[in-house]
């Protein structure tokens, strides 16, 4: 087909294939370097920063990372992810406090519970697209909120308090700050790696195709509902992992974590850091949690500050912090 290659429209301006590959390679090298520095920093961090603050950041970072799996890589905006985060917190808190589970099992109970909730919510929501999908997830998560409000085991407005941190696998005492910190760091890295793996897998490749052009994916024979549902359940499970971990760390599970404001917060974290980027949601979570901590003691209402930041983000750097950084590096 020499006539096809030679004639016709002019080639797009830009670099050669080799340059394109090299650029890709460079970016992934930078990514690896960032990951190594970040992990090293996180290992050293508890000696310089208050560990409970760091652990809170890690819990929200994992939550946002799980949320980004859906928003950034499948193009689904769930406005009900608090249900999985907060729901898992309740399950884990109950398992640890009432059933006397050791912390890792309690966290797994929370994550699996969130995954099952994700299966139910996802199965109903993925039939709709765009804003309707977001509305269905919001409605279902509000239903879940009221179930948790009424269910006796959550203790309503009081929440489940005094959740024991316990001994990890009966061996490691998690009441020691460094022990629990490194445990949380490991769980975070596991969840983070799981999302990275899913995104960079053959399955993740199909998810991105669905995000790019759903009808085309269907016409290539992909049963997209199943892929979306699978991604939804994965995202809910990992969000649950984060919420369950938070309940063990802060020793409390409350309505705050399951309320719709929390669903909004994770959207903000993800957009601020950069949706569809691997590191963005974690960075966004760190920024938001830091701001909340900082302004909690000042007279300025936190929500106003966060609102301003969100507006600035949308107006000035729509790709989010990491998204803009990647764009600058690609130049």
């Amino acid at each position, binding site marked *: *087909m020499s*006539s*096809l*290659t030679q*004639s*016709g*429209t*002019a*080639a*797009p301006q*830009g670099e050669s*294939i080799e340059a*394109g*590959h090299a650029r890709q390679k460079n970016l992934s090298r930078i990514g690896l370097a960032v990951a190594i520095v970040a992990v090293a920093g996180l290992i050293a961090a508890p000696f310089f920063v208050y560990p409970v603050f760091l652990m809170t950041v890690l819990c929200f970072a994992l939550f946002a990372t799980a949320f980004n799996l859906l928003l950034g890589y499948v193009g689904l905006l769930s406005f009900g992810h608090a249900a999985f985060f907060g729901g898992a917190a309740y399950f884990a808190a109950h398992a640890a406090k009432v059933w006397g589970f050791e912390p890792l099992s309690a966290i797994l109970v929370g994550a699996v519970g969130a995954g099952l909730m994700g299966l139910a919510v996802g199965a109903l929501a993925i039939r709709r697209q765009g804003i309707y999908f977001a509305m269905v997830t919001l409605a279902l998560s509000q239903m879940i909120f009221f179930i948790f409000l009424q269910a006796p085991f959550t203790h309503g407005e009081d929440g489940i308090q005094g959740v024991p941190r316990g001994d990890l696998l009966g061996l490691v005492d998690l009441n020691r700050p460094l022990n629990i910190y490194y445990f949380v760091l490991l769980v975070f890295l596991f969840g983070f790696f799981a999302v990275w*793996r*899913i995104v*960079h*897998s*053959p*399955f*993740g*490749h*199909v998810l*991105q*195709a669905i995000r*790019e*052009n759903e*009808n*085309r*994916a*269907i*016409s*290539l*024979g*992909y*049963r*997209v509902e199943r892929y979306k549902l*699978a991604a939804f359940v*994965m995202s809910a499970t990992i969000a649950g992992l984060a919420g369950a971990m938070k309940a063990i760390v802060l020793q409390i599970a409350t309505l705050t974590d399951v309320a719709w404001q929390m669903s909004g917060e994770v959207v903000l974290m993800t957009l601020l850091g950069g949706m569809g980027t691997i590191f963005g949601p974690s960075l966004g979570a760190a920024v938001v949690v830091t701001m909340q901590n900082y302004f909690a003691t000042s007279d300025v209402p936190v929500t106003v500050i966060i609102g301003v930041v969100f507006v600035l983000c949308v107006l000035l750097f729509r790709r989010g912090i990491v998204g803009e950084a990647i764009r600058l590096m690609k130049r």
Partner: protein
Amino acid sequence: MSATSSDAILSARGLTKEFFGFKAVNDVDLDVMEGTIHALIGPNGAGKTTVFNLLTKFLTPTEGRIVFRGEDITGVKPADVARMGLVRSFQISAVFPHLTVLDNVRVALQRKEGLATQFWRSNRLLGRLNEEAERLIDAVGLSAFSAHDAAELPYGRKRALEIATTLALDPPVLLFDEPMAGMGVEDIGRISDLIRRIAKGRTVVMVEHNLNVVADLCDRVTVLARGEILAEGDYATVSNDKRVREAYMGSDDE
């Protein structure tokens, strides 16, 4: 409702689609013979794209029946129709814009290699598909662009990419919705050549506005107007039909 023709690979009987009382397609009988290039033509709003969407199950018919290779597919989902070997393109170019040309084709190859659901393995596995993907990309003349994002390609080349992606499924029946829409003369020539070449050993159904292309490429032409079939036959027969000239060609002297 008459029986479907036994030589037809794809048949429709009494196909009707109503949108809120408006009959976009009304009682259409269609037989696409195996190994032919079959065109659906007609003025704007004639229901061509609706027929297309009905045949590939992207729309559900209000009434009527669709048979593909002797099997009733009226109740089958679009993804499953594609799996049975009836693969369509779209009027607006159907590529995955932010995936590279290579990745576009690999998405199509992934499923049959069992590489679609593995979420726990590295996407480096997709490297296995490179050879076949590059072969398909080469066949449509896009080798030089395989590392580019599909969004960067000019329009005609996007269509070529779309064809390469469709061919990756190796479907016995291809449906193209206005493959030449919005193309310059040079691109039309290239895509025509390409369609003629890939039609060997396959059946092609295409919606097309450009009558020169239809005359040149197609074995059989069905003319639709206001949701109904006006005429059917080879291009010479159809183009001499008085009703067709009135409804369609009269307004399109070329």
